[in-house]
Structure formats: structure tokens, C-alpha cells
């Protein structure tokens, strides 16, 4: 891709939330990352089913693409070329440059079990990986990796999530065991912005207001920041006894937010986070929501119920229907702008 084309693609990505707000477009491919038809498999046994990356088809079904890999967690796409994406797996960070036909394990033996991987949309050669013992960065599209942990604590840097601020290159928030950490220089240095006693499970930036962030935590409920992640405060009306796993903003409606988790299932707000409602009727009795997401094209709400199926709701959780993938554990959603012909 020529530099001018890259610039246009970046611009398109930056304005995408605004385009989506209130006017659904059919502009995204949905990719899922996870394991399907989970059985009591053991290390070394044959895979009885396809796992790894799935892409939604026109009829709503999901087609497996790429490799059969049962331990893929999340993925992140290069905004310049959707055939280039990075996946956090038990082996490390895998990447493909041809839409999943061929893959390379980018990391080596010294980085394992990344929980999350993110491309900087404003500097897409730079990739961040959340590691159980810190944070890895690649500046060459995943080929080589180094640790950038200056400012993270020596211990307590288990990192579950890393999220890049889409408004500024090199500005990244990391959700760790001991709190939320911020870098503004592409991980050359970090500083703690909010301490927690246990792990921060998710960090999401509102597609409508880049200063508005939410953090799902293991034992501090859900935290909100209105200043771009510099300060955080608990969100009222949400329990803190058990973990919240992840958060989804609705790109089509700034008032709508969803939270998923094992214990509380699916929680939604339709007033920008002021009040919350459990939306588990219609989900399985064991509504263990491993991951939730909202389709930027139509506002459909997804709930991936672990060891069960993927569910979708067209009315923001009031009713649900199965979207397939039985006995699955979907760990990651990625809505990727469709490549223009």
C-alpha cells in the first residue's frame, strides 16, 4: 500500500465511529477468536473440531479460517490491510499477512501466553502484547519483540489487557494485576494511574468520546474515566464481589454499554452507564458470559456464553437467539472494516 493510501485508510478508521453513530452501515467483517466444540482434550491429542479464527458469513453463520488452533484468545488487525492481523495464543503472538493462509509465531520462548494483543492504529507497525509477566512490544509488524516495562512494577505486572488510545500514537493503557498503567511514549515508560488489588480484566475507550474509558476489574467493579484514563472512579450500581470480564460500547448509540461476566452474566446500560439492567432472560441458565460485543453496523448485542453458544440480541438484550458455535469459548471479537474493492 502506498503511503497516501495508508493515510486515507487511517483517516477512514478514525472517522469510522462517527459514521457509525446512529447510522448503521454494512461495513464490517466480524472475526471471532476462540475454541469451539470444547471437549476434554489433552495436550497432544487430536483436535476433534476446528478452533481459532472464525469469520461471519453473509447468512450469519461463521466460517473457520486459517489454522486449527484451540488456544487463540484475541486478535487485532492492521488498519492498512485486513489480511494482516495478530493473535494472542498460548504459544505467543501469531501473525498472518495473507488473511490466515500462512502464519508465523512472532514471539520466542521468552514470551508466553499473551492475554491480549493490539495494533496501534496510528502507528500500525507497532504491536503491543499483554503478557502474564509484563508487556511486549514489536515495532516491525510482529517479527521481533522486546519487553518494554519501565515503570511497571517488578511484580504485579500480570497484564490481562492492553488498549491503544485511538487518538494519539503511542498512548496505551494496560490492565494489570495491580492496576491501570499508562504510557504516552509507546511503552518506553509507564506510570500507574489507578491501583487495584486484583486484576484489571478489560479496558475500553468509548467510540463516541475518546476521553471516556471504562475498566472491568476482578474485584473493584467497573471503573470509569472521563479524562482519557488519567483518573478513575467506580461506576455506581455495579457489584464488586465477583469479576466483570469485559465491556462493549455500542458504536451506534452513545447511551448503550454492555458488560459481560461469569457471575453476573450480561449487564446493559442505556443511559450512558448511569443505570444497569441484567439481561440474562433468554440466555442459558448458566449465563457465564465470557465475552460480549456490539456490532458497529446495527447495534446487535453478542454474548459468548462459555461452554455453551454464541448468542445475539437485536433488542439490546431483551430477547436472545443462538448464533451458533455450540460448546464454545469465544475470547475475542473483532469488527474489521470491509476491504474496499
Amino acid at each position, binding site marked *: 500500500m502506498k503511503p497516501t493510501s495508508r493515510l486515507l485508510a487511517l483517516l477512514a478508521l478514525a472517522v469510522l465511529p462517527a459514521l457509525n453513530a446512529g447510522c448503521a452501515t454494512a461495513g464490517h467483517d466480524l472475526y471471532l477468536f476462540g475454541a469451539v466444540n470444547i471437549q476434554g482434550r489433552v495436550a*497432544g491429542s487430536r483436535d476433534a473440531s476446528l478452533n481459532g479464527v472464525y469469520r461471519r458469513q453473509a447468512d450469519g453463520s461463521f466460517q473457520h479460517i486459517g489454522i486449527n488452533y484451540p488456544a487463540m484468545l484475541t486478535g487485532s488487525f492492521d488498519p492498512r490491510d485486513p489480511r494482516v492481523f495478530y493473535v494472542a495464543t498460548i504459544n505467543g503472538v501469531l501473525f498472518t499477512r495473507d488473511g490466515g493462509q500462512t502464519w508465523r509465531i512472532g514471539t520466542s520462548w521468552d514470551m508466553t501466553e499473551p*492475554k491480549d494483543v493490539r495494533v496501534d492504529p496510528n502507528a500500525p507497525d507497532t504491536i503491543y502484547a499483554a503478557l502474564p*509477566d509484563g508487556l511486549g512490544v514489536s515495532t516491525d509488524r510482529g517479527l521481533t519483540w522486546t519487553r518494554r516495562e519501565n515503570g511497571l512494577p517488578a511484580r504485579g505486572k500480570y497484564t490481562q489487557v492492553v488498549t491503544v488510545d485511538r487518538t494519539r500514537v503511542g498512548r496505551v493503557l494496560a490492565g494489570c494485576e495491580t492496576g491501570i498503567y499508562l504510557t504516552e511514549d509507546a511503552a518506553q515508560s509507564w506510570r500507574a494511574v489507578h491501583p487495584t488489588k486484583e486484576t484489571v480484566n478489560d479496558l475500553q475507550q468509548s467510540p463516541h468520546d475518546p476521553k471516556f474509558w471504562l475498566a472491568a476489574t476482578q474485584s473493584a467493579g467497573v471503573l470509569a474515566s472521563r479524562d482519557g484514563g488519567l483518573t478513575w472512579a467506580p461506576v455506581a450500581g455495579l457489584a464488586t464481589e465477583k*469479576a466483570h470480564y469485559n465491556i462493549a460500547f455500542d458504536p451506534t448509540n452513545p447511551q448503550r454499554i454492555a458488560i459481560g461476566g461469569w457471575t453476573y452474566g450480561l449487564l446493559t446500560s442505556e443511559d450512558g452507564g448511569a443505570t444497569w439492567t441484567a439481561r440474562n432472560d433468554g440466555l442459558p441458565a448458566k449465563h457465564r458470559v465470557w465475552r460480549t460485543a456490539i456490532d458497529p453496523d446495527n447495534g446487535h448485542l453478542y454474548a459468548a456464553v462459555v461452554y455453551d453458544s454464541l448468542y445475539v440480541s437485536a433488542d439490546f438484550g431483551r430477547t436472545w437467539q443462538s448464533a451458533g458455535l455450540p460448546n464454545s469459548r469465544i475470547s475475542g471479537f473483532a469488527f474489521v472494516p470491509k476491504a474496499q474493492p
Partner: protein
Amino acid sequence: MNRLPLFLLALAATVTLSAQPSFEAPPPPTAPVQDAGKRHDEYLKRVQEVLDWRAGRIDITQPEKHLDMAAIAVLLTRGEHYDVCSQRVIELMKDPGTGPFWMFPAVCVAYTGRDKLTPEAQKAIREAWRTTRQLRGDTENHWLMYYASLYLMAELYPNEPAETWYSGKSSAENLAESREYLVHWMDELTTSVGQGEYNPSHYIGEYAIPMLFMATWAKDPEMRIRGKMMLDWLFAELAANTLNGVLRGPNSRTDEGSAIERWNALSSYFSWLLFGNTPTPSGYGGWGVYFAPVAHNYQLPEVIYRIATDRSGDYLQRDRARTRRYWRYSDVLSPPVYKTNYLRRDYAVGSTQGIVNDAIQSHVWDVTWAEPDPRGKHNTMFSLHPHSSPKWMQSQFATYPEAMITAVTFEGKPSYDSPDKILGASPYEKVFQDLDTVIALYDIEPGERFEHINGFFSKDLVNVTEDSSGWIFAQGGRAYLAYRPLAPYHWIPYLHYNGGWAKEKLPLGGKLLVSPHLKNGTIVQAASVDEFADFAAFQAAIKALPLRFALDPVPTVTMQTLRGKQVTFTYGQTPVIDGQPLDYSKWKLFEGPYLNAEVGGRKMTITHGHLKRILDFNTLTITDQVTK
């Protein structure tokens, strides 16, 4: 997580159908074979027995039913049925497994068949290493198998481009990464700060087999000698921790079956094969078959053999290891483990200081007595807090809190969340051992999943006597045992999870002492029957020893041991022996009459009598000495 493959369980269920001479025969003599030539001949005979047994189970007319990779490796080693093996390899490679438990068997077939399999079969193996993603796993044995396998395959197929490997890396890149990890594991971890999976009852095979492959097949002479030295290192530790070939004492990882029937473990296969002093487990331990095709390439050093077979004198071995990685909720990535093992002719006592080495499978301490025939015998005594905690699981596994217990019970560790389990470590257990006295203290946090401790009382104990003094006396084999619960208790039958995916619990006999009190403790003392005129004299001696204990505010014991030591041990505090605090910081990597190594030294000195072998990973040299 680590899981034993299903096919092994199926194998274990069927292996008893075939003749297994050394499994079915009377136990072998435990006295050492003095003649070196005879000793080696007997070793090779045992190797041949494994190959013959495995070959004997094969109906070559039904390769789809009978030819798995172990069978193929055995046939190739014996020089039989190359064409059938080749065809079967092609079939198997159409549907390969994923992960280290598939990788090293595939390596075994690739190397044993490199000049015997047809080009098409060899091509099929090579293709599987291009197309099938191999999981590296999340445990130390996974990684060692993974990288040893990848290393050897990258050497077998050098100079090939990235697109021909599942990793997307070239042969040279795979080789470099694998070598770097293997050297790191040897130099920076195992020979410097100890294994994370120390004294494993089963996983010893997952270390020994890849190291034998490395010692046999690596083209790089450095990696060959490293493999050979690691085999000596592993087997020296096995030798020093076995009682007539039976691995006892603390295990980084084991299972319910091996925790009570101490002989019934893959480690006993290696004792049988190398030391010849215990029966082999059924099916030669399953994985053990993969050692046999290349076992002729390893010769056990005599000094290790002597350590394994000499229990004429008592000895104390104090060693260091480390825990599995704590990803979170710990100030240290892999805290040190301090192991104490005291071995005598009739019994042995072993422990760690009480630490969660592995959240699921650790075994912390026991007294194990010698049995003339250990098969079917539950020859051990111990207590534990049945700990089950999502947060502790999170410390060692990169997962959400709620899911892990479900996953564990779903994926092969069904007892983890059971109140009557006899496997696992607890953060609320602290242990002190002096020779054959163990004090285990418990201070369980209120609100924990299980607020009691379990004491295992074997079906094979005799004369179990609940004395009015508070001591419980019993005899196991030729060992007298005294067990002192520090809080009230009751008895329940012991019900056994038969390991793996067992859904039902079996009444194998024996009982559990259940003490439903948060502040708790157990004292165990042991002695040989030869030391007392009779059982009553042993009981009288124990009861005469001064003993004071309290449970509040924290459990504390002050006592005189049967060996005359004055000890004070308070939960969470440094034990004091004869007025001297026990300084764990000075513990060496290995320290005892047989094995010695400094922390960070990368060098082990193995000694028995006038024999000495030094394994020096700094210089990659093996030095044998005979002192006058």
C-alpha cells in the same frame, strides 16, 4: 494445564491383557548386582522385555488398531514390517495431534525410521510438521518436550524455509530458539535454582525421554552431552529419593494413585529399568515404551546405581527446588522449595516446608514404609489441608477466577474441588521435618472452601490404636508410626478418585482422619521395629517425650523428638532445633552424603563410597573419580 492423554488411559486399561514378565513376576531382589557387566546385561534384558512386550501386542494385520507411534517405533527398532509401518505412518500423519505429547513420539518415529521408512512416509512426517499447529503448553515438562522435539526435527531437516514449518520460522530459526530454551532450562534453571517439577512421579518420563533423544540423536555434540548429563542429573535425584525403587516424599506433581500407592508411578518404571530393584508398573508406565528404543544408548553410572540400591545406612538429603511460576499474587516468580528427605532401610520421611508448588497436583510430605512387594500397597501416611481456591489457581494460571475449577475438574483433575481429596498443597500448611519427625501446622483462613484437614490412614496399616494420650499408633511394614492430631477429629472411609477422568470414587480401603478445625496440626514420628522390643515399647517411648502445643493464636509445638532433638515450631515462624533457628537461606541446591551442588553452581557432585561423578554444566564435562 498438563493432562495425560486419553490414549494412555486406554492403554493402561488394556495392558494387563498381555504378558508383562516383570510386572507379573515376584518383586526383584533389592540387593545390588556387583558385577558391572552383569548389571548392564540385565539392563539390556529389561529394555528388550519392553520391546518384546510392546511388539507382542501388535496384530500386524490390523495396523489401524494396533500400530500407534509407540508400536511403530518399536517395530522399526526391531527391524520389522517396514512397509506396514510406512503405510501406517502416512495414515497417522493425516490426522496428527497437537502439542508436546504428540511431538516427541513423532520425533521417535522420525529418527528410528529415517533409514527404514519409505520416502513417502518420511515426507508425511515432514508435512505434518508444516501443517499442524503445535501447542507449546504451559508447564515445564511441556516446554522441554516441545523444544527438544522441535530442536531434533530442525536438525533432521536443516536449511528449510519458514513456510515449511508450522511455526512460520525457518529450520535455523527453530533450531536457535529451541537450543536457547533448552540451554536456559539446563543452565539457568535446573542446575542453578532447581527444577520447578522436582521429583515428579510421572513427569520424570517427560524429562528423561526427550533428554535421551537429545543424547542419542542431536548432531551438535554439545547438545548430545547436555542430554547425557541431564539424564545423569535426573536419575541421580531419582536414586537418592527412592526406597527400594519407590519414589516417595514430596512431589512437585503427582496424582491420587501415586500419592497413596507410592510404587504405582512412571518413576517406578525407570527404577525398574535402571536400578532393577522394583517391579515395573503395568504397561511399563505407558510412556516408558518410548525410552526403550534408544535405551541402549544410555548407561547408568555405577555411582548412581549404588545410591539407588544402598539403604544400609540412614541418610539425610536436603535440597532446593522452586515452584511453578506464580504469574500473580506473589512477590516472587518461582519461590524456593526446601526439601528434606531422610531415608532408612525400613521407611523414609520427606517434606517441603509447606508451599504451593503446583496448585493442583503437589504432594507435600509423607512417611512411607518399605514393602517387600509394593504392588497394591498404600504404604504411606500424611495429612493435608484440602485447598481449593479460584484465586490461587489464578496465581499459577493465566485465567479468570471462576473458570479454572470448572476447567480442572472437566479436564482430568476431578478431585481438586473435593473436600476429601488427598492431593494438593495449601497456603495454610507449614511443615517442619527433623529426621523422622514431621510437624505439619495449619492456620486456615475462615471462609476458605474447606475448613478442615485430612489425614490419610492406609488400609495396609496394622494395629491402629487411638491412645488416650491423644496419639494414634500404628505399624506399616517394619515401621512403627505415631500420629498426633492437634485438634478433635472423626473418621470417614477413604474413597479414591482413580486418577485422570475418573467420575466415580472407589472404596479401596483405608480411612481419612478429618479434623474440622481451622487451627490445626499433625505430628508424625516413625521408627524401625528393630529399635524397640515391641510395639508397646515404641508407644511408651513416644508418650514419654515432652510435648506442649497450643492452637491459639497460631498453632505452635514444642517437643522432644524420638531422636532427642528439642524443637519448637510455630506456624509462620522459623523452626528452632536445639535452640538454633533453621536457616533456609543457607540451603544448597543439593546437600547430603550422595548429592551435592551449590545454588547457581551448575555443577553436581554425585558420591557413593569411593565413587564420584561430577557433572559440570559450566564446562560441559563429566568427571569420574575413584578414591582410595
